[in-house]
């Protein structure tokens, strides 16, 4: 774990850190990754990964319309919106 890796994953996560915190974060991540590296000691060849404790396929149901249009309610929670849309800074010049 070096500063370059931390910079890459910070960007992937859309997070930024000031210089002061960068050092601590790098150190913390290094320790955590070292800690989880003990998983290497186990032989897992031919072991099917367990993604969820429920190993059942989700049930299907009839596609009945139940949701109402609650546009106003949802837009009310937006940091910036007009009558119909969420507003963000201009993307296309």
């Amino acid at each position, binding site marked *: 774990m070096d500063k370059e890796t931390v910079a890459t994953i*910070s960007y992937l996560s859309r997070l930024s850190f000031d210089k002061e915190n960068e050092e601590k974060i790098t150190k*913390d991540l290094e320790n*955590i990754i070292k*800690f989880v590296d003990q998983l290497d000691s*186990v032989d897992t060849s031919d*072991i099917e990964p*367990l993604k969820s404790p429920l190993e059942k396929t989700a049930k299907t149901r009839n596609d009945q319309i139940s949701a109402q249009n609650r546009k106003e309610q*949802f837009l009310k*929670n937006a940091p910036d919106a007009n009558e119909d849309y969420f507003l*963000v800074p201009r993307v296309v010049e």
Partner: protein
Amino acid sequence: MSIQFKTIKELSSMLRSKEVSNYELLQETYQLVKKYKNLNAFITLNEENALKKARDLDNNPSDLTLSGIPIAQKDLFVTKDLRTTCGSNMLSNFIPPYSATVIENLENAGCISIGKTNMDEFAMGSSNETSFYGNVNNPWGEKLVPGGSSGGSAAVVAAGIVPAATGTDTGGSIRQPASLCGITGIKPTYGRISRWGMIAFASSLDQAGPMARTAEDCAILMNVMCSHDIKDTTSLDENIPDFTKGLDAPIKGLKIGIVKEFDLSKLDSNVVKVFEDSKKHYESLGVEFVEVSLPNINLSVPTYYVVAPAECSSNLSRFDGVKFGKRCNDPADLEDLYIRSRSEGFGDEVKRRILIGSYVLSAGFYDAYYKKAQQVRRLIKNDFDNAFKYVDLIMSPTTRGTAFEAGSMSDPIQMYLEDLFTVPANLAGLPGISIPSGSLDSKPLGIQLIGNSLQESQLLNVAHNFQMTSDWHLRTPPLRSK
């Protein structure tokens, strides 16, 4: 007559006999909330609505199971028209347009939600120190943490303000604070309680559950909280028993497993003594203890710290400053908006876990970390499946020790190891309960019982037997008011 420290069962009987009115009960509840404000256990109160509901109940009495019972809701469940922050600055202004299924189930059964309890930010923490809204104090001692992440819920029940609160448990967040605060908390089988309206942390591990003074009250709440929910694809479509039935059935002849690989010699010898005393207590009730081997169980915490951050980094990508939640001031462009909104909205622990998640999911590391952890997760589940061929339940201490002082655990990994005994049940999706079983330096300690899939009734029965024959769950903390 004071309502403090009363159970659901006792309050229901007081309401039915009109010893107290619904309004008086709620009024006194809010007096207690204010008296113990120094616990910092609530983020948002629902006082006006709650008192109105109580008044309505006095005018139109109902015979619903939880009629008039005040309950505190963890601020991780969305509540219609009531601010829901998940302990984060990111959601400091979020007013949900709907309620979680669990909240609906509880309110439809007549309970009154009195407010939203403080918690570790997005449920990521074991001490309630990561909340944007400040630490919660453990009623058992000044400066002591209540555990986490459901620390506010545990503290309000321990202080006797409400008989019960909701919690959620991703790696121990119900059981660990229950142990440190001297109350009872159960994490049901994964899928028993709908996750719809729970703000997601790690979707394959998250599970809601009740926190209360007694196993009996937990059973009453389980009856209401569990449901099959078509809005949650991981919701179990299994028979839901009456959890209050058979609670006092004798447990003679029951076999409880002690995990060989949990090295208790590393714990404080007094902690071990409390655990041994609990075993003796169960032996006096006719239980037989058997050693079981779960060879991979000590890899649970490292497995968890790959799986949970991976799922958290995906789940928390929704907080982008566009549709709801915090947005930074004057973003230069869309990218700046994303990055600054997230960097300002999330605290350090949440950021740390998002970064680990992004790392273990990134190209080149996916197989080495994420896939590997899921494979080890399978081995841990297999270990449990095998153990349950020989025993009915598994017992361990809930935590490595009693509540510690705020600020005393600065190393993230030491904090992660706080969940050593609780994380395995989440990885395997199994039900687990923590009950008060002793005390050390006047601070409570708990034992954890883990059951096989869907065996919550058995867990509650075994816990109730302990509580019928001991008084640890009845002890009350030396509260200071402010």
